[in-house]
């Protein structure tokens, strides 16, 4: 581990991005749109009553938190790792005494800071206008932090192992599109997972996608508690372990394959 080098990379990327922040603000704006659309759909549907036990104000709260969590867990580098491999950029990274994963990590960490500068004020303004209803307890606030951290790690590593398939197949990023679609459907974007019909709900609770996005939101807003909370963390941690193993195995074999065929 070369933490000193990794930290330098993060600082550099951050400095670089701050130079072009308006571009990243636009990107962040684009990512905010789908959750905001569903915020309006569901809060309108709820009207003065409730849908699936959630009131208008609770839908607003759910989606505003989801906007923040989505920005914090979205791993944009998953889309660029494949290109770096395909177009030979991996050579320069492999020559350094620093694991290339730091390059992606530095972009992620630097990116979050830049996006938050834009997303937090926008969310605050929306909250003032749309009046969310949320009761955050100390327990849910404390549980939210690890749930969010694990969600980010899971989403990052899951996308990273998928992207590493580029070592063998030229268009592995098609699988990333599938991942995004599944997060959209089963990860709590199109609807809170509790509102999904029977079998689909069970599928969404078993697959990793809910734990990349909806789970921390549900934790903060108190939708999952007690035994469900513990179970949720267990499933999330299990999927993270699976993603880590897949990442390590694919990374080792990928580099071996790469150095066998030449970049």
């Amino acid at each position, binding site marked *: 581990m070369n933490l000193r080098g990794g930290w*330098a990379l993060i600082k550099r990327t951050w*400095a670089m991005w701050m130079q072009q922040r308006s571009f990243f603000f636009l990107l962040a704006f684009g990512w905010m749109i789908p959750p905001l659309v569903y915020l309006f759909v569901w809060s309108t549907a709820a009207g003065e009553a409730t849908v699936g036990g959630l009131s208008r104000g609770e839908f607003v709260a759910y989606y505003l938190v989801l906007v923040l969590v989505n920005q914090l867990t979205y791993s944009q580098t998953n889309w660029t790792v494949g290109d770096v491999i395909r177009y030979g950029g991996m050579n320069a990274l492999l020559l350094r005494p620093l694991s290339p994963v730091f390059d992606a990590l530095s972009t992620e960490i630097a990116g979050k800071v830049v996006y938050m500068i834009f997303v937090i004020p926008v969310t605050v303004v929306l909250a003032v206008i749309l009046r969310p209803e949320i009761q955050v307890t100390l327990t849910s606030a404390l549980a939210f932090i690890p749930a969010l951290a694990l969600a980010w790690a899971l989403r990052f590593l899951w996308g990273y192992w998928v992207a590493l398939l580029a070592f063998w197949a030229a268009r592995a990023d098609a699988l990333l599109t599938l991942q995004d679609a599944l997060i959209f459907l089963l990860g709590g974007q199109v609807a809170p997972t509790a509102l999904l019909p029977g079998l689909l709900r069970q599928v969404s609770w078993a697959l990793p996608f809910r734990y990349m996005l909806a789970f921390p939101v549900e934790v903060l807003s108190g939708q999952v508690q007690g035994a469900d909370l513990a179970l949720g963390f267990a499933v999330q941690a299990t999927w993270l372990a699976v993603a880590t193993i897949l990442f390590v195995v694919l990374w080792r074999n990928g580099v071996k394959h790469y150095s066998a065929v030449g970049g």
Partner: protein
Amino acid sequence: MDAQIVVRDLSKTYRVPERAPGLAASVKSLFRRTYRDVEAVREISFTVEAGEMVGFIGPNGAGKTTTLKMLSGLLHPTAGEARVLEYRPWERKQAYLRRISMVLGNKSQMMWDIPPLDSFAVLGEIYGVSPAEQKQTLDELVDLLEMEELLSKPVRNFSLGERMKCELVAGLLHRPDVMYLDEPTLGLDVTMQARLRRFLAEYNRRSGVTIILTSHYMADVVALCERVILIHHGSLLYDGALRGLADRLAPFKLIRVSLGGGQGTDAEIALPEGTEVVERENGRLVLRVGRAEAPATTARLLQTLPVVDLAVEDPPIEAVIDQIYQEGNV
């Protein structure tokens, strides 16, 4: 002096998927792929001493870059062994990577949007160079390359030559013991090529860094490398002094003669036996003779022809190299 780079019977064979052109063939290749083995490097062996500057030459596709990639750890060899600074390169140990450097003429280490100084600082941190050392090395390199004014401009606006200067600084900031340079002067103008050559020679002399360099510009190799390794079709054809290569490959000399008295345009000049006319123009002749016969032939020419001017030369190195590239043997 001890050997820093030891290469024994190193080979690399690529498996390349192969298919005929056309739609039918591409559909067929979906189900059954055929492969062809391409031997990029075949059982090459050599050693390089500390501080040496060796030129890797050979035509495109000879296996030069493949060999450099194996030595820098980017490629696993198919067979054979190599030790650089006592490390096996392709194990890619961090301790090894910290002591080498590879500069690729067509790939960049620099970040486009920020001034080079910032890129250098990050590289310094990645290689674990202390700020004081970084500053000292940077000052020295910037001074040698005369690039003070470049340090605060974004790399995006640089010319090719300016960017190459930065690549060299980036590659030397951690003071590597071994440096691989792949086509460092590619696409540069003559002045910039000469500038970089002077820099490399001076830096090698000062720091004692071991350098393996590939280039298609023979001028680079002539100026920098006393020793050359010639690779062709993946095999090592020659390893030794550049001078010796010419002697071995081109066992002849060129005699340039200018004739007076309006002679030389016609064919009736009596030339000594074994002499070949390479060029003939307005009373000027270029003749090719065997090395051993050169003195006798010169004497004969001076006796028999109205010579105004005469010079005996070695054939240009480019011509020698071109001959090997085309004939494929030494």
